[in-house]
């Protein structure tokens, strides 16, 4: 008890000491990024009745050596289910599953066609500059089946750049070393960007093992993550831009045992090797522009358990054409077509499996009057020569005042998700007879903002309510022989409220900013699967009812700091809600200073994670690290 009090006092002291130098730099814009709108923090992009937000480079740059799961769990309402540092982390939106989330890299889907999801721990923040998040019906214009949302990793060229060199080294607790480098060279017509990341972690953090009643070090937890991206942008003429990108990444990670299994630890590891590439041609004119894109994603995964290995190799070829035409007054039409093909060769499938998708889609945005905007999105997909039911989405945005940035919007949609290749073909239980899942969703929200992000007082509030009914949801359920088999049997209702509050203000020469998000979500099973099923009406497992994130940032003359607080309420671990993981609060602190020496910027940054050294588990019996540190030194030269 005494220790607790002393501890608390010390932390309070620490905070008060640093309060004066908690800084949040506006000049921290990643130099590679040239956004159309200068923003800091989460910024709501809503102008067509659909919900989209952007997490900008100002935030991302403070997490240069982290992975995507850290950003999403601390700065968005997306819930990340994480098995620990460097281990499998999957996102879920609004009470839907990871399969209902599409992760994109500059617009191309990078989900595994086998699993239908992405492991966020394998995506380093240093490989993209901003993050675009689309919620619910907003995804229909991009893809079918992303009932929850789309997370898009974005990188863009800065045409004014001539040379930009960045080199960063991070030393973190538990023998974790990360090196990031970036080189951007070019002129008004050609830009080349090369990004390299390499992390090497023993990840052997100490934790309290309840089984042995002692402090142990996590074993079998080493990971190595590496990647290189080469991007080239060509301005062929005033109207034409050609973009080519290739991203090669490797990830070798051991899979640590659960706390009850520390006796003769099994050899368990996963090796991933991925090549993502794309080429895009964009032509823009006075009243139209179009993009033509082709991409190839090659994903190899090898899973080893003791002496057994399983190899999975998939190739995804995606092609897309999209036109944006605003030839008719007040009306913008965005028709498009896509053709995608997937091939998978897997030790878990009987022979090579393929899938081809043809999609036709169109968006219509019509400004009826100044205060009313209508959006209609239509999509028709054909998968393996079978038509998926028609997908429509409709949105209305209402702006009652001319001079006040207040808008109300509502949208509704019907969406379908085709089963993943594992659902269809996993040997011997895959079920080729599966039907697509169906989602009926409705959403309503409001956004209000006042002032400018960079100067003076700024306020932005958002409030969104959603309701989604998913039927024919695929569930791996034991059949009469007791073997798991995917079936279209589950019905899930997910509803909730998302609220956001962003503030920025000046006190003397300090610039303060505060970004807060809260998500309330009830996602429940609505169909009994067998007699005596006690899961009816119960919250889905590992789906928190409440999540809250808050960031307070301060900056002054090159110093910056932020305090990041996140709360996750209890998550049930059994579908009958008989067991649960208690909710927890985590606090992190970031402190840094940028030294400007003519064209060189030197940055020194300290990240303090799990400030209060909370002994917690996010998933049952998977230990999480206590208080830990990361120190980053960054060199940046820009001409």
């Amino acid at each position: 008890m005494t220790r607790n009090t002393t501890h608390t006092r010390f932390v309070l002291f620490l905070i008060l000491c640093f309060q004066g130098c908690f800084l949040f730099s506006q000049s921290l814009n990643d130099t590679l990024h040239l956004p159309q709108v200068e923003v800091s923090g989460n910024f709501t992009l809503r102008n067509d009745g659909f919900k989209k937000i952007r997490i900008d480079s100002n935030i991302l740059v403070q997490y240069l050596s982290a992975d995507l799961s850290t950003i999403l769990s601390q700065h968005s309402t997306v819930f990340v289910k994480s098995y620990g540092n460097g281990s499998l982390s999957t996102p879920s939106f609004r009470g839907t599953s990871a399969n209902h989330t599409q992760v994109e890299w500059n617009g191309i889907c990078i989900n595994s066609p086998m699993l239908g999801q992405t492991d966020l721990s394998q995506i380093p923040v240093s490989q993209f500059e901003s993050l675009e998040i689309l919620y619910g019906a907003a995804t229909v214009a991009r893809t079918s089946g992303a009932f929850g949302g789309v997370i898009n990793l974005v990188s863009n060229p800065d045409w004014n750049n001539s040379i930009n060199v960045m080199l960063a080294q991070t030393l973190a607790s538990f023998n974790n070393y990360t090196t990031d480098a970036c080189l951007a060279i070019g002129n008004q017509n050609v830009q080349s960007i090369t990004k390299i990341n390499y992390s090497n972690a023993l990840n052997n953090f100490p934790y309290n093992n309840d089984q042995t009643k002692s402090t142990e070090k996590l074993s079998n937890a080493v990971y190595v993550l590496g990647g290189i991206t080469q991007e080239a942008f060509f301005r062929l003429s005033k109207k034409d831009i050609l973009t080519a990108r290739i991203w090669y990444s490797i990830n070798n990670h051991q899979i640590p045992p659960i706390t009850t299994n520390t006796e003769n630890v099994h050899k368990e590891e996963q090796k991933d090797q991925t090549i993502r590439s794309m080429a895009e041609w964009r032509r823009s004119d006075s009243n139209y522009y179009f993009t033509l894109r082709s991409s190839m994603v090659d994903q190899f995964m090898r899973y080893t358990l003791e002496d057994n290995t399983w190899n999975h190799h998939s190739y995804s070829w995606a092609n897309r054409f999209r036109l944006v035409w605003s030839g008719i007054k007040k009306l913008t039409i965005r028709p498009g077509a896509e053709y995608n093909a997937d091939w998978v060769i897997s030790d878990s499938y009987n022979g090579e499996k393929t899938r081809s998708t043809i999609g036709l889609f169109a968006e219509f945005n019509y400004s009826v009057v100044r205060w009313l905007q209508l959006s209609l999105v239509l999509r028709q997909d054909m998968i393996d020569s079978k038509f998926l039911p028609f997908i429509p989405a409709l949105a209305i945005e209402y702006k009652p005042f001319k001079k006040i940035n207040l808008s109300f919007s509502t949208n509704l949609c019907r969406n379908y998700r085709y089963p993943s290749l594992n659902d269809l073909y996993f040997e011997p239980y895959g079920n080729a007879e599966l039907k697509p899942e169906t989602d009926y969703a409705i959403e309503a929200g409001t956004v209000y903002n006042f002032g400018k992000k960079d100067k003076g007082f700024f306020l932005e509030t958002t409030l969104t309510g959603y309701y989604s009914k998913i039927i024919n949801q695929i569930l791996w359920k034991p059949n009469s022989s007791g073997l798991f088999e995917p079936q279209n049997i589950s019905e899930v209702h997910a509803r909730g409220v998302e609220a956001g509050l962003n503030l920025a203000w000046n006190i003397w020469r300090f610039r303060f900013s505060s970004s807060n998000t809260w998500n309330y979500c009830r996602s429940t099973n609505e169909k009994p699967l067998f007699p005596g099923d006690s899961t009816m009406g119960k919250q889905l497992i590992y789906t928190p009812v409440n999540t809250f994130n808050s960031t307070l940032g301060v900056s002054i003359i090159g110093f910056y700091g932020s305090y990041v607080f996140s709360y996750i309420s209890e998550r049930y671990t059994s579908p009958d809600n008989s067991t649960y993981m208690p909710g927890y609060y985590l606090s992190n602190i970031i402190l840094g200073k940028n030294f400007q020496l003519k064209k060189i910027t030197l940055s020194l940054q300290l990240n303090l994670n799990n400030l209060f050294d909370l002994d917690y588990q996010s998933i049952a019996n998977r230990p999480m690290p206590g208080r830990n540190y990361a120190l980053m030194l960054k060199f940046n030269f820009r001409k």
Partner: protein
Amino acid sequence: MILNKKNIYTSAASKFISILLLIPVVLSCSKTPIREDSTTVTPPPVNKSYENGIFVVNEGNFNSGNASITFINTKDTTVEQDVFKTHNDRLLGDVAESMLTFNNMGFIIVNNSNTIEVVSLKDFKSIRTMTGFSSPRFMAIFDSSKAYVTNMNLSVSVIDLTTLNIKKSIPTNSWTESMIRFNNYMFVTTIGNMGLPTAQRNARILVIDTKSDQIVDSIKTGKEPICMVMDKKDKIWVLCTGGFDQVEAPTLIRIDPSLRLVDRTFTFSGGVPSRLCINNQKDTLYFLNNGVYQMPVSATVIPTAPLIPSNQHLFYGLGINPTNGNIFVSDAKDYIQNGTVYQYDQSTASLLGTFPAGRIPGSFCFTTASKKK
């Protein structure tokens, strides 16, 4: 004036920040470790002793560490959940495969934790956690000082029951499962090498000479010989599932252990049979194949209709109470919620009782039986 106004703003803002900072600080100071917990308040232990009753071994989910033991007191039919955790203030482990009792001790084989938890049947307190196994499955007592444990990972462990240590490991190069003692030999079923496809796995029964603890012979069986029982005429019955991926039809074979030969083979027309059991008189076989089937050892064909149909239950574990012949069968439901145990009369097949259990109730251990032994 302007300065004053600015000060007011500044102090208000400072207060706001202080409050903002303080809220999380206060909230964050909880020192209770965040661990999985039960939403229902666990009642205090209802049993003073665990010497008479039925243990339900709840496997729990693989890689989740939620295995548990449920105790059914046969006298007053009360049910106590999570007995191990209650008395030992720690989790049982990951995937509890089976349990047996001997000499007033309970041995719980925890497969994916690579342990055998030895508890006193008096108070269920841990006596010892035996380690050094490689995915242990089942344990069989040979005599008062020696026992054998099958492992998925290529060995049979020999246990010294006086020290509760592993004495020796007999390499098998294959996944071993069920065991039966016949004279000075242990008959051990083996599924073959896990790394190979089922069709190539060498399924057989290994014969271990207990004097030398060496494999001295083997008998070929159908694919995946998972359970074995001995009848009143000392014939060994082996249930072979045909492989999890059903590469061949499931079979029930009878072996003459003295000749070490298969002398009878019954082929199933369908389904995935499992959990072969025998009653105390050793004249009637029971197994699961969607429903519960009953088959006299003298039968010439496999029964076509179940004694107890599953009625959409997922029958997963089966046990025959040696004292009265009652059938205990567990419903694992969807494998992810808590299961239920049903007790049926062996002749009328009428339901005698329903007991709540833990996650994936897979096997039973009847304590009165070991006492008689």
